[in-house]
């Protein structure tokens, strides 16, 4: 019984939250990695592009809510996301046309493109704040829990409750579907393969008749989809605040690099590596040991490796270690 309790405890406080957070990071990390692999620069506007997509989602959600359209127990935002994606893709393509294209055709060094992306970051951040303001916003509606902690306790008779939020299930489900579609696209279709070829060796790809304009356009479209969905899922699960999105850029970068930048599958797993290590290292295991050990050996302290204040620091330290010992990432990306 105690073992069951301990397992439920870990599931409730570590496994499910980490899986959710990891999925949100993974979508962002694939976004970063795709831009890096194909357009060859580190996109510092990642977090703010995601917040832009979320903002459009929220605006559409409000519009639908005012019309009274609602998908029942599911959040209204799900209906809004497709429209937001279209908007986001238009935004991304126009940024590319007016800003990034010039540097790409001039074959500027990656550092210059990264600097330009900082300019885009400032502008996007301003646009988001001017339109929707910097405050915290929740836009979740519909059924909040799939399993409530109290119901679970009554059902099983255990001491530990397992709470399953619908946003958590939604996040994990959508991520799995989206990522499988993406990998199918990249590995099986002709366009996807040509994208990979372009990422591996630009000159060879051009020689074999791949149209770079098309590749770049498709990259931005995929990026728009990932940014909107990733951002909206994070906003549904926690809340929408432009500053948090900007900060999320940092663990997303860490995930992309840990997974091997330029490698979408690595980025996907990197998201989970970062999320799990953050939560595993900062969780207080006192209760877990209380279940697992006999009473005489129960720990006095919280049995916490690091205080939760250092959550971000954990992922950054992992990144530094990976950069030192395996600069191409865990799953071989581009060699630095």
């Amino acid at each position, binding site marked *: 019984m105690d073992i069951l309790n301990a397992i439920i405890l870990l599931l409730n406080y570590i496994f499910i939250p980490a899986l959710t957070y990891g999925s949100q990071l993974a979508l962002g990390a694939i976004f970063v990695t795709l831009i890096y692999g194909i357009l060859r620069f580190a996109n510092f506007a990642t977090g703010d592009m995601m917040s832009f997509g979320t903002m459009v989602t929220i605006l559409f959600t409000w519009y639908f809510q005012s019309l009274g359209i609602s998908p029942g127990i599911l959040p209204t935002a799900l209906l809004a996301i497709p429209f937001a994606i279209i908007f986001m893709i238009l935004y991304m393509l126009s940024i590319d046309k007016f800003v990034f294209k010039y540097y790409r055709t001039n074959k500027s060094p990656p550092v210059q493109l990264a*600097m*330009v992306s900082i300019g885009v970051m400032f502008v996007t951040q301003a646009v988001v704040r001017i339109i929707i303001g910097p405050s915290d916003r929740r836009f979740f509606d519909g059924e909040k829990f799939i399993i409530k902690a109290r119901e679970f306790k009554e059902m099983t008779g255990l001491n530990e409750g397992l709470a399953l939020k619908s946003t958590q299930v939604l996040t994990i489900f959508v991520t799995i579907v989206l990522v499988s579609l993406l990998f199918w696209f990249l590995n099986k279709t002709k366009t996807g393969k040509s994208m990979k070829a372009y990422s591996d060796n630009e000159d060879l790809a051009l020689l074999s008749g791949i149209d770079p304009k098309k590749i770049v356009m498709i990259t931005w479209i995929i990026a728009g989809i990932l940014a909107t969905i990733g951002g909206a899922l994070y906003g549904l699960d926690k809340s929408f605040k432009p500053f948090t999105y900007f900060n999320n850029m940092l663990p997303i970068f*860490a995930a992309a690099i840990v997974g091997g930048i330029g490698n979408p599958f690595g980025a996907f797993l990197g998201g989970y590596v970062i999320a799990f290590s953050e939560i595993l290292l900062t969780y207080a295991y006192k209760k877990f040991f209380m279940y697992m050990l006999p009473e005489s050996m129960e720990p006095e302290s919280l049995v916490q490796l690091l205080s939760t204040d250092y959550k971000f620091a954990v992922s950054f330290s992992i990144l*530094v270690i990976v*950069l030192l010992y395996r600069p191409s990432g865990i799953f071989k990306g581009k060699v630095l």
Partner: protein
Amino acid sequence: MRKNLNVIAAYSIMIGLIILVGIFQSWNIALSIFNLCLISAVMTMGANIQWGYAGLINFGIMGYTALGGLAAVLISVDPVQEAWSAGGFDILMSLWLIIVMVLVIRFILKRFEKSKMRTYSIAAIIISGILLIRFSAEPGIEAIEAVDPAKTGFLGGFGLPIIFSWIVGAFFAGGLAFIVGKVALGLRADYLAIATLLISEIVIAIIKHEDWLTRGVKNVIGLKRPAPYEVDLQTTDWFINLVEKFNSGKLEIISNLSDRQAALNQLVIEGSSVFVKLCYSGLFLTVVIILLILTQKALYSPWGRMMRAIRDNEEAANAMGKNVVKQHLLIFILGSAIVGIAGAMLVTQDGLFTPGSYRPMRYTFLIWVMVIVGGSGNNFGAILGGFVVWFLWIEAAPIALFLINFFTAGIPETNALKAHLIESVPYFRFLMMGLGLLLIMRYRPKGILPEKIEIK
């Protein structure tokens, strides 16, 4: 003279703008903008040394700024005796343990060949060391933080004049840069950017949460000043006489004696805060000028030539026998140290240390906008960038408000869109910075005052 015309013109426009602020808004605002412009200029010089001279990208400016600020606290605050007696021994113990740990790792690194075994044992030493330190320091930290937590709750500093912290801040930041440089300088440019950005976040996390050292988010307020206090000035005779002399024309118009006294009091209060700001301006200007002379000398010295050679073609410089790695590390340390000075200056001016206020937007990316806009590789350009960008950053809101009112003049005040726009005026500064950066990068990629190398 002729070839420096654009430099002189740019600077006179800038000074003119600040004077205009003084005339139209108030001299207080103008001087506080000017002071922060000077501090920004110091930061920009640091970043410019790294980026403009050597092509090293450092997105960790925030971390070095915060370390400089920490130095200001540790130097100027009086030591808290009770805290030292409560937990000082434990802290010193842990410090000693850290030193032992570093020495052991160094020994292993020197003694054994590179192998998996070595890597794992080093990892084991680090992990067990951290655990050991945590356990040994825990009671001490708790005891220290329990000492009058509303007022102190930390070890305090050395109680020296705060001006020393400018030098100590440089050493702190340089020390961190040495470690970061050893770890990260081998990386390619954009990875270096990300790595330094993340490391600076770690530094901020530590400063925010190690309350025994920095008081964390409880902030340290009321730091010592290198300049006189306004309250003291207002009761000092020579200062009142000075203000009276300065404003004699204005005062003579008022015939009523009590009215004149009231006006004088008002002028003394205003004058005292202007005077204090002027003191700071003098100090900061001295630092800027000293740094400018040093960096100019360095830029045109053989060393500066070597740095440019390394920046423009690393391999060729390497083939000429220049030690690229060593020089990169050196310039990384120098630039970061200058940023550290600026961090200490900033805290000195504010008189308080607020770890929660260190955010990458303000302390890293804004500084980079300054460097790019001003002109990388050119010290005068970097300083100008600091001035222009800080000025716009502060004055963006009034400018945006003016523009909104101008373009929506026909729309009534109650219009929802207009009200919303006026409410979000503060965020137009981000828009202005972003557009400025994008336009400069596109149409004048070398900045307002481009790098100019004279060969004599």
